[in-house]
């Protein structure tokens, strides 16, 4: 069983991804700003080594930019949830917490 607070954190994550991400500040972040000011930002232009499916958090094929960002946000949040959960299960030796609880009930 997940604690109530953890459920609420998950709900907040989904709400942030859906409704707050489209309102993110478009200003450059600290590193981009420094790269711009010191004149080395152009060194990164065209240097991408892979083709990203959802570049810059804009889901392709959606014309409304806010919606495209919100969709990218929720997709990314759910992928992150699944991958991090999966990694946690793998690291702990493939024991999902539910199975562990069941085991506990059987032996206890």
């Amino acid at each position, binding site marked *: 069983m997940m604690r109530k607070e953890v459920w609420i954190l*998950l709900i907040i994550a*989904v709400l*942030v991804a859906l409704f707050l991400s489209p309102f993110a500040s478009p*200003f450059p972040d600290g590193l981009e700003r*420094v790269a711009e000011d010191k004149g080395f930002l152009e060194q990164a232009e065209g240097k991408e080594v892979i083709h990203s499916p959802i570049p810059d958090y804009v889901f392709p094929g959606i014309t409304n930019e806010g919606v495209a960002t919100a969709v990218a946000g929720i997709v990314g949040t759910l992928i992150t*949830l699944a991958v991090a959960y999966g990694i946690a299960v793998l690291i702990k030796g493939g024991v999902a917490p539910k199975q562990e609880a069941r085991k506990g009930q059987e032996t206890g």
Partner: protein
Amino acid sequence: MHIPDGLLDAKTWGTAWVLGGAALAYGVTKTKERLQERQIPFMGVMAAFIFAAQMVNFPIAGGTSGHLLGGVLAAVLLGPWTASIIMATILALQAFIFLDGGITALGANILNMAVIAPFAGYWIYQLIQRLWNNRTGTLVATFIAAWFSVVLAAGACAFELAFSGMAPLRLVLPAMLGWHLLIGIGEAVITTVVVGYLTRVRSDLVYETAKV
């Protein structure tokens, strides 16, 4: 401060991959030892929350923005080793799916944001929290540690850029630190609010510091 491809030279990103990768490999071993089975869903939710929160850039000053890193948030609640795995997972997904941070630069981004930020932050947290061992102390320690984690990660990033010959250290270090002194305040506020909320009723979601 996700470094894109093209800004770091091969010796720098290669070294960063080795250092970041070694820390992560050890982090997997430590997480296997320390993470409790009941914390597995929390680890997933923490990663999802940090990913979502990282999308929301907040404006700071002079046409510059910042966003949460989340290294100290994860470290205070799940311990620094688990935090490093969470942060590295997020950084890898951002690089491969969202073009946020480079692939060659992923090792450096992991070193800065998945190793230096959670660990340096956690050590500072632990130091203050041991001297001031109650709820207020925990929250003050969280605030200060979160701020330092951003500033120190930005400092590391500046060194990597300087090693790569992008700009002299005397220019790039103060510039990176200057902006991140401000961004760190946002990090500190968000981290403290979330830790405060999660521990408002019971403190058992906070990682047991004695175990580190």
